[in-house]
């Protein structure tokens, strides 16, 4: 079973995350992504550069090396042109009889009516009449060129290595800072946005910043320098030819922009079509059994064929248009080459230019178009890199949770008396949730909280953990305001089993030991036995070493929940919070777990939120919450006798069923709960 999914693929699925899956675009068509504009380009770009601050020295060294290698690479062809001239001169020299001067030979040619060749000869260097190619001069020149190229390559190598180090260290620091920041952000920050969005910022956006930084820094500088150097060399060799070559710049720009514009819309179309095909595929595969049993396969096939054809068309157009950029550029390059070859040839034959210079010029003109297009494409890359950086900066700039009080009190052995004093809290300022709540829980008591979805049950227990800051009033633990404790101190006294059965991607053993890293194998086993984890673990191929994957879809929701209970069990805290701890477990198993849980609760203060009223019969106090208020409190028997809201709930639920119509099944909870309540 598992060998069908490679590790890489699983990782890929995970990496893409929910947001990416929903967007469903092709992974490589980055060109097709609608270009994102940054909010405020210049300040943000500056801030990105400031990230490189600690690498200042390295960056300057990189710049110096880049200048050096570009300059050396630029003079190379010119010197190489001299070599061609030496060869050419040798060809001519061997045709002139020895003893005759260069001028005389030219005059002879003119006398024979070969004015043009004469003009050429008259201005030629290195011509020694009667002698062929001057090999010592040629050898010297070629050795110099070789040396120049070698040094240039070395400089380039050092530059590349230094730069990659600087960029990677910078990104390392950025990642570290962002992760650090995540630990200091208050919980409402996480609740306030879709998880996929935040996730995409800390992963995709940082990757994008890294990539843009690496590419722009290494290429932008070299490309710009190269363009400048090449143009100067061309102007130096022949201003006339330089003008001709430079004419191609605006032409190239115009053509690439025109094609780019056209292809952009095709890429957007391709992106859209891909999304649509992915949508049909996702839906048909996910609803596979329904499609079959309802006999809709043919319908699905038709639907798919239509989308697939549209994608075929769109991807053909996009590919074709973008694919024609290169040949078109090549054509412009060739035109340039032809014109330079012809005009250069004419100029050589009139003696206005040497053959070696034409040769060099052709090399320059071929080399300067490429960096030019690179600079142009860099603009988009920079835009998207800075836009990503802005999203990352937004995280770094988000307000942090209140720091722990400096004079934090260290409380000794907790007895577990919890008191809410006139507590008010709301997620949004305009919609009050909990108002003026008072509640005292004595050590060792079990408090059950019941009520409809959205009544504030989970919120209430989250406040004890100080996941949220109060708007008014205070909560005390053994008489000490919880804001006077460090979060570490407070939370290490509390064990919690959440609605959200989050497990990390590790083995079952590691997950159980999460709350107590120093636990022995025997401790883990004991916790597992008490919470019935041991029973199903043996049916798994790798037992306790079974690795839970990110989606944790290799074990059932009920089994996940049992593991989270074992985790809390092992942590053995003095205060226990059970939020819908057994909602995904079937009633028979639940009953068994209940026994374990009551053992766990016996000498601890416990808060229990439950849907199934049957599970809270033996609670010391039952609180009935509605709209953030406690509308009723008392023991099971008292409340039933009172015939109030609890009795009504109880009657509605005579079979231990779910209370709420609109209760979201556990599996979907993660996706559908915007506020983490």
């Amino acid at each position: 079973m598992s060998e069908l999914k490679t590790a890489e693929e699983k990782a890929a699925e995970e990496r893409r995350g929910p947001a990416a899956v929903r967007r469903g675009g092709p992974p490589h068509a980055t060109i097709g992504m609608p270009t994102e504009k940054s909010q405020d380009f210049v300040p943000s770009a500056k801030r990105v550069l400031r990230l490189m601050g600690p690498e200042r020295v390295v960056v300057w060294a990189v710049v110096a090396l880049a200048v050096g290698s570009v300059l050396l690479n630029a003079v190379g062809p010119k010197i190489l042109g001299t070599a061609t001239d030496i060869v050419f001169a040798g060809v001519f020299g061997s045709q002139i009889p020895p003893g005759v001067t260069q001028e005389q030979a030219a005059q002879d040619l003119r006398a024979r009516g070969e004015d043009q060749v004469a003009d050429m000869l008259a201005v030629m260097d290195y011509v020694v009449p009667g002698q062929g190619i001057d090999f010592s001069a040629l050898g010297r020149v070629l050795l110099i060129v070789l040396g120049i190229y070698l040094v240039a390559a070395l400089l380039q190598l050092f530059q590349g290595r230094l730069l990659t180090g600087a960029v990677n260290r910078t990104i390392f620091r950025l990642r570290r800072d962002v992760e650090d920041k995540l630990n200091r952000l208050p919980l409402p920050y996480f609740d306030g946005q879709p998880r996929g969005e935040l996730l995409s910022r800390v992963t995709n956006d940082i990757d994008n910043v890294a990539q843009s930084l690496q590419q722009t820094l290494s290429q932008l500088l070299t490309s710009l320098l190269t363009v400048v150097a090449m143009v100067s060399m061309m102007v130096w060799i022949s201003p006339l030819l330089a003008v001709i070559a430079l004419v191609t710049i605006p032409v190239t720009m115009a053509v690439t922009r025109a094609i780019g514009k056209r292809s952009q819309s095709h890429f957007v179309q391709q992106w859209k079509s891909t999304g649509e095909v992915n949508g049909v595929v996702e839906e048909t595969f996910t609803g596979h059994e329904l499609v079959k049993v309802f006999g809709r396969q043919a319908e699905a096939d038709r639907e798919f064929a239509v989308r697939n054809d549209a994608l075929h068309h769109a991807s053909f157009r996009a590919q074709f248009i973008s694919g024609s950029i290169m040949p078109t550029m090549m054509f412009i390059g060739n035109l340039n080459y032809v014109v330079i070859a012809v005009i250069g040839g004419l100029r050589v034959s009139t003696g206005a230019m040497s053959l070696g210079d034409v040769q060099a010029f052709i090399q320059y003109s071929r080399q300067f178009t490429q960096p030019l297009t690179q600079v142009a494409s860099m603009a988009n890359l920079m835009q998207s890199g800075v836009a990503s950086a802005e999203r990352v900066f937004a995280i770094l700039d988000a307000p942090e949770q209140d720091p722990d009080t400096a004079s934090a009190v260290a409380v000794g052995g907790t007895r577990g008396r919890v008191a809410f004093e006139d507590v008010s809290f709301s997620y949004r300022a305009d919609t009050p949730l909990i108002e003026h709540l008072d509640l005292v829980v004595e050590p060792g008591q079990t408090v059950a909280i019941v009520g409809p979805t959205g009544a504030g049950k989970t919120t209430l227990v989250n406040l004890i953990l100080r996941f949220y800051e109060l708007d008014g009033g205070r909560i005390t633990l053994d008489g000490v305001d919880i804001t006077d404790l460090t979060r570490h101190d407070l939370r290490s006294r509390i064990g919690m089993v959440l609605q959200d059965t989050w497990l990390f991607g590790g083995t079952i053993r590691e997950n159980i030991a999460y709350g107590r890293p120093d636990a022995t194998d025997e401790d883990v086993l004991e916790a597992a036995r008490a919470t019935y984890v041991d029973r199903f673990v043996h049916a798994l191929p790798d037992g306790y070493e079974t690795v839970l994957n990110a989606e944790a879809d290799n074990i059932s929701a009920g089994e996940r929940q049992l593991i989270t209970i074992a985790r809390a069990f092992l942590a053995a805290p003095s205060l226990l919070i059970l939020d819908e701890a057994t909602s995904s477990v079937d009633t028979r198993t639940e009953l068994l777990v209940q026994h374990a849980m009551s053992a766990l609760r016996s000498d601890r203060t416990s808060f229990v939120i439950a849907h199934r009223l049957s599970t809270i019969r033996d609670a010391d106090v039952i609180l009935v919450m509605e709209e953030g208020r406690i509308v009723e409190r008392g023991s099971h028997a008292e409340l039933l006798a009172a015939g109030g809201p609890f009795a009504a709930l109880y009657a509605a639920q005579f079979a231990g069923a779910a209370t709420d119509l609109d209760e979201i099944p556990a599996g979907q909870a993660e996706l559908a709960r915007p506020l983490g309540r």
Partner: protein
Amino acid sequence: MLYRLTRTYLAPYAVPLTVLLVLQLVATLASLYLPSLNGRIIDEGVAVGDTAFIIRAGAVMLVVSLVQVAATIAATRIGAQTSASLGRDVRSSVFRRVGQFSAQELSRFGAPTLISRSTNDVTQVQQVTYMFLAMMVSAPLMMVGGIFMAVREDAGLSWLVAVAVPALAVAVGLIIVRMVPHFRAMQKSVDSVNRILREQITGVRVVRAFVREDVERERFAVANRTYTGTALAVGKLMALAFPVVTVIFNASTVAVLWFGALRIEDGDMQIGALTAFMAYLIQILMSVMMATFMSMMIPRASVSAGRIQEVLGTESSVHAPTDPVAIPRGPVSVELRGVTFAYPGAEAPVLREVSLHAEPGTTTAVVGSTGAGKTTLLGLVPRLHDVTSGQVLVGGVDVRDADPEDLWAHIGLVPQRPYLFSGTVASNLRYGDPDATDDELWEALRVAQAEDFVRAMPQGLESPIAQGGTNVSGGQRQRLAIARALVSKAGVYLFDDAFSALDVATDARLRAALRPVTRNAAVLVVAQRVSTIIHADQIVVLDGGVVVGSGTHQQLLDTCPTYVEIVESQQAMEEAA
């Protein structure tokens, strides 16, 4: 893998591919002709001062350039067209193949991987095919042609080609070979960095509640360091690649000049030929480099092709019979006779020797703990799986002998996860019967206790439904799924834990409304809640894949300890009974 897949799927495009090959050949020849013309400008024009020849040769060069760009663009067009067609065809094959899969193959692969195989993997193969057709095809042509032209210009210098080409290929190849494992390592380490971040975000409450921030920070720091380490290794190799290539190019040029000069001095070569030779050598080296770099894409695409082949090569375990037996019209019964079902390779079967008989007009409930095999049992009826041994009969016909379409037409299914499709309320309900009238839809909604909330939606039946039904609540989704099954007016209804998100009162109303509509149908219900099944005509108790009791509620209370445990676990039930 890649080769086999592309060969199969490119076969229908032999004609355009031949045209493409010809066009690439023309383009290559044209671009190879340019340096030779330039050489002649020097030898026959510049050196002898023939201005007219220079201009004439220039004009020819222009024409050749035009031919080259036209041929290249035409080839690009065919390449884009063909690779897009290949993508379409492969995608459609995968989609159709998965459509034939039974639930067994689907769960063996898993929906997410099948989705990525039919989308991302296909894109990958399509991309490489395009690259190959647009660029790689011309590389060997350019190489062969370049060598031919270079030799023609001057055979004496051709040994330089024989040295420069392998030198470049080996240098670039070595760098790439060293880079590939780093790339893999980098992918892995970026995945682990992102996985930890993902866990920290999704598990923020747990991390904080268990005060594990420091441990998480350390875990992340390790991953971040590993990632930076591999990224640096890759970066350093990259930094090496460009200078090495430049040096080889430049050294070749220098060598051509030196050895060319020697040959010119001996009168074996003209100076124009030297220039042309230099241009050819550069062209050859360029194409070698292109080919080497592009071959980097092949391993990745090959993995994708393998994953696609794996899907295409998987046969459905459920086959349609060649000679189907028709299931009788009208009310049908459902019968399981000594059914055993095991997943292939599993040690223990999920169901063992299960028998039950459900007459039309009766309700049969299946209860048991999680993992008892209830859902598997229901899935056997519409042949989502096939039995390992024993028989499943619908209307007296073994389901394996019936035409699947015929079988499915008799079945209304409400699965455990009430999945809805994107569209509208009406389009979802018409899944059961495309020709149902609005009145019929409303009737189904009424029975499913969904009428009120659909009426309350501003657009009623035409209200939009998001993919999966995520824009309605769990309870609403469940009721819409029930209504969808009812619209099909089936002879057999399968409700797999279909009432779990409903409160007891709604559950009771729904069951009451259901009774008249299903009076001629065999109804199978899987449920957790005892109240849902208390009035069923028969209750089958499953435990560990075995039937441990069957009968009515009262009978089972007397005879079946497992059933009693289930009932007792729902304590409040005792008081009600």
